[in-house]
């Protein structure tokens, strides 16, 4: 139909009105089937057993509905000594070509799900695996999985320049209807923490804020959050996070509405250290944060003072400062960790003979 001047004008006005309306979460489109991620990294379960899986190479997060691949197997996750050998065998390659990226426990079946990269070269492929209560490892057939996805926006390149910028997703957690995503950029030191409503709305990349490190109340820098865990204080959602520069910080999830958040440092956990995983658990009526680290082993931190811990405002002279912790010397070589049930955590532990999946009592 030919467009009249009058219709054209109306159409232009309508487009302008739509364009000026802020993006809102809308009803999610029906999920597609058969995701084809370029890579798989961080994993986390959301409500209703949706598995969020980060494709770090494509800065994309998949929400996977596992369907019958979340049921049917024996509940729980049994110990699997030499799991790297067995994964390599399943994927038809050698253990040195297998890299386990993350480990999470299904909230209902308590089966373990692992994200893995197979291969060391350009032809490396991602794999999602399930370990059940018999210790059996199965490849999740992604071509049968329903999914939706959201891609983190990448700023466009300047005209005439190649865009070499990329984000990697370092940690994710689902809380209060939102997927909170921490990432690092390969260019800017500052990184954004995003809270993305789920179901994903195609037009809504989530809200992002820059996180600052209030350094002993004196110095302040932009700082990337590397790993974190949702935490409730006074019935309000918070984040307990570790910046790239090691301190343990606390901030309110509500504060993510602005463009800038300064975290409150509640502990400094020492140098040569990078927290890898955090889990919250109860023992003898008290709550603890268990944190695995790349060089300082596993730390057990009582959370009772998280809400009230005074910000560290003076430079620290001792080895550590702030909220106290206990070093769990019985847990060594921990590369990945999640809560298996009320009494046990499940860990991937590196030993001289390889990688072991093991359920261990919570300390």
């Amino acid at each position, binding site marked *: 139909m030919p467009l009249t001047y009058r219709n054209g004008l109306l159409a232009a006005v309508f487009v302008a009105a739509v364009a000026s309306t802020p993006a809102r979460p809308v009803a999610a489109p029906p999920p597609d089937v058969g995701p084809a991620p370029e890579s798989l*990294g961080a994993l986390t379960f959301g409500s209703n057993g949706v598995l969020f899986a980060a494709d*770090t*190479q494509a800065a994309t997060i998949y929400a996977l509905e596992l369907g019958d691949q979340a049921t049917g197997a024996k509940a729980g996750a049994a110990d699997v000594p030499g799991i790297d*050998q*067995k994964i390599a*065998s*399943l*994927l*038809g*390659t*050698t253990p040195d070509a297998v890299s386990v990226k993350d480990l999470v426990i299904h909230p209902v079946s308590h089966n373990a799900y692992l994200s893995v*990269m197979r*291969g*060391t*070269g*350009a032809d*490396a*492929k991602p794999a999602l695996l399930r370990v059940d209560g018999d210790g059996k*490892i199965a*490849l999740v057939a992604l071509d049968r999985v329903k999914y939706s996805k959201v891609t983190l926006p990448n*700023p466009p*390149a*300047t*005209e*005439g320049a190649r*865009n*070499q910028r*990329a984000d*990697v997703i370092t940690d994710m957690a689902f809380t209060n209807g939102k997927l909170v995503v921490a990432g690092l*950029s*390969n*260019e*800017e*030191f500052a990184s954004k923490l995003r809270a993305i409503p789920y179901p994903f709305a195609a037009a809504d990349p989530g809200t992002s804020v*820059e996180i600052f490190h*209030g*350094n*002993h*109340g*004196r*110095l*302040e*820098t932009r700082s990337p959050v590397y790993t974190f865990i949702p935490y409730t204080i006074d019935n309000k959602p918070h984040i307990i996070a570790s910046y*790239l*520069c090691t301190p343990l910080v606390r901030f309110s999830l509500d504060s993510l509405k602005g463009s*800038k958040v300064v975290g409150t440092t509640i502990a*400094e*956990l*020492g*140098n*040569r*250290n*990078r927290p*890898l995983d955090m889990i919250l658990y109860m023992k003898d009526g008290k709550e603890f944060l268990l944190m695995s680290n*790349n*060089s300082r082993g596993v730390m057990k931190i009582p959370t009772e003072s998280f809400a009230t811990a005074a910000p560290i405002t003076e*430079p620290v*002279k001792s*080895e*550590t400062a702030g909220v106290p912790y206990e070093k769990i010397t019985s847990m060594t070589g921990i590369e990945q960790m999640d809560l298996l049930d009320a009494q046990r955590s499940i860990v991937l532990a590196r030993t001289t003979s390889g990688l072991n999946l093991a359920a261990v009592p919570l300390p």
Partner: protein
Amino acid sequence: MKSEGAARRITWVLRCVLSLLLIGSTSCSSPGPAIRLDTTNPSRTFIEVTGLPQADLTALSKANLSPDEWSALLRVTLRSSASPLTSEGPGMAGRYSVEDSLRFWPSFPFDAGREYEVRFDPSRLSRVSLSARATAATVSIPGSGRSPSTAVSAVYPTSDVMPENLLRMYVQFSAPMGQQGGRGHIMFFDDSGREVPDVVVPLDTDLWNAERTRYTVILDPGRVKREILPNRDMGRALHDGNGITIVVKRDWPDAHGLPLTTEYRRRYRIGAAEDRALSTMEWHVTPPAAGSRDAVTVTFPKPLDYGLLQRSLSVGRGSASMRGEVRIAAGETGWQFVPESEWQRGPYILTVQPILEDVAGNRIGRAFEVLSRGDAVPAESAVPVLVPFIVR
């Protein structure tokens, strides 16, 4: 594929008939199952068991076997001297199909240059009885035969001096690299040849560009930042007045799994910490001549971040952004833009995005570390800075 199988069966029947007619032999037994690797389509290679009796194929196609049963019947494993074909460990994951032959389609391609053991054993099926006998074979795809060809083509910053609070470096490769990150492959040495430990933040993720040709190295910000524990405990990794040599080891595998052609070494002098905000007032813009396609040149008083320089500056006239080519000067102290079309006489705008940083993380109007007094910290600007220049 169906016609190939039919042709094979016809050939076998003809052989039997011929042997009966010409040789007078009465023994015409089945040739038995045979295992072969089909690489006709390199992206869809599969393993095929041929020569199965039609009754077996029919039974298999109707049996509705579980994945475990399929894997017991036709098991594919990587051949390894350390763990020869055993019942330990799962067989290779894949799908099975039955047409004129039994086929195994691996979930992941077979690795070139490796050998795979294939075992077909009907006796391991309890629910279905097959008449074919067991057989086994070793299959492989030849290795590529490549030799090392990837090298480090540059390390940024390219200036001879780096500040002691350097935050980020880039290692540029001549071709895509493999999945491994820099841990264990990038090292730092002082002028006496001793390794300087804990320079780089120990991440369990790696920062590549999309092509995997540029790797970002983040120096441990816990040591760079003042007055926090790692900094107080260990001090900065780099010290003003010293020298430091970055070494990229040859054993870092490229996308083909091959080492680099050579080890890369580069020595830097370490200068004073750079803790001032960027100011475009200190930049010098050299406008080109009207009617030419000469570059507009912007020079900076200190090196800026190589990665961010590529995409933080642009040139426009009015509201239109110009198309052209960006060049970064050696030492990252200059930026040039060569337009696709000739410069017109009149005003132009250099637009600088607020994400631009120097090599120590300082931005325009806000240093990496600022003294905070309550809420008095200046807010970060989200608005580009505009630098006008005139073409005459």
